[in-house]
């Protein structure tokens, strides 16, 4: 491919991206874009994209990630169940590809602990100026290239066969409502009762006034926190 051809290829594939989304029926380009803005803003505003939050959780020094994650899942699981009952949404569960889930989960967990990001929080950290995450993204793009190139010969066989797309709602039959409530409430309670621990980054807080700093508030609310400088 010459450089002209390459340029045309990139432009036409980018146009494809726009056209596919417009034609697919899962929201217009602008709606999907706005969902992204909100997703990025919520994560950035709570600071859960930070290395100190994600790697800090891996180190056992910060629990904001599991608290926020389990609360969101618990609330959504119950509300989504009723949203679907009313006919306003449907389930789209992912297949149980057992070896893919386990091997992939292990590789993903190792990567997440070291990178201190995941694929959704990475772009947010890049947007706020983290150079190391740009390098991580290049590694990720290289990973995407390798995965695509060797999908048929290596990765597809490694993922194993699918055991269906079963959910808790499917298997509990008549007791689905009860099962969803137990599941959702249990997750919300876990979120509330996980002890709150935080690892703050001084560089992240230095621009704030004293009364805006979360670590001064943490001093009154809970004991387990640490500021790294």
């Amino acid at each position: 491919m010459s450089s002209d051809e390459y340029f045309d290829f990139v432009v036409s594939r980018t146009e494809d991206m726009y056209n596919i989304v417009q034609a697919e029926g899962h929201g217009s380009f602008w709606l999907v874009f706005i969902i992204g803005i909100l997703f990025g803003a919520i994560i950035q505003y709570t600071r859960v994209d930070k290395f100190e939050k994600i790697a800090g959780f891996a180190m056992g020094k910060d629990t904001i990630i599991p608290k926020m994650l389990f609360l969101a899942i618990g609330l959504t699981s119950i509300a989504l169940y009723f949203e679907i009952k009313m006919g306003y949404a449907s389930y789209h569960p992912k297949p149980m590809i057992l070896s893919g889930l386990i091997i992939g989960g292990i590789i993903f967990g190792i990567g997440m602990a070291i990178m201190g990001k995941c694929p959704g929080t990475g772009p947010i950290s890049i947007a706020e100026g983290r150079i190391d995450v740009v390098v991580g993204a290049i590694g990720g793009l290289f990973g995407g290239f390798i995965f695509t190139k060797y999908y048929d010969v290596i990765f597809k066989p490694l993922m194993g066969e699918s055991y269906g797309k079963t959910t808790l709602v499917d298997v509990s039959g008549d007791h689905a409502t009860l099962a969803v409530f137990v599941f959702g409430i249990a997750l919300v309670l876990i979120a509330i009762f996980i002890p709150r621990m935080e690892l703050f980054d001084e560089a992240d807080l230095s621009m704030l006034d004293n009364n805006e700093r979360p670590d001064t508030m943490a001093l009154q609310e809970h004991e387990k926190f640490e500021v790294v400088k």
Partner: protein
Amino acid sequence: MTRRLPWWLGGILMALLLLFSFSVFGADRPIGASTYIPYYAGIIFGMDPKDYTYLQEIEKAGAWEGVMLFGVFVGGFITSVFITKTFRFSIVPTAWKVYKNNSIISRLSWSFFSGFLLIIGARLAGGCTSGHFLSGMSQTAFSSMIFGGVVLVTLLVTGRYFYNLEDSK
């Protein structure tokens, strides 16, 4: 105006956003955030979808997430500049300096390697923190609970042994 959103408010807002995305008024699909990487890689490395079965499989999901992640980037930039005041250029995270080392080379090579692992892992499992944890477990899918359990354990074990947690105390 508060400069940091508390975790519980963040959790509630995230739940509302997920419910909106799932609903027919929104996108009628779950939020995911790892398919876009091989999709972008396909564009950047000049891979024609005709030649790669994987690119054909992810053609639609990749495009949707590709657009969403543009938004994520913009949203993160706006709040970091105007609300949290955290926009600045940095290379080595502070906690990495305290609990690992001061070396830029070390951080950047580990970044490249772990970024690579993140995407290989997520694509093997068919999802990441967004697609499996947030969206998948909200649908009470067993696949996502298995992934979630494996990731939690691996994450905590890796964090325990990768960083020097004893020396710095």
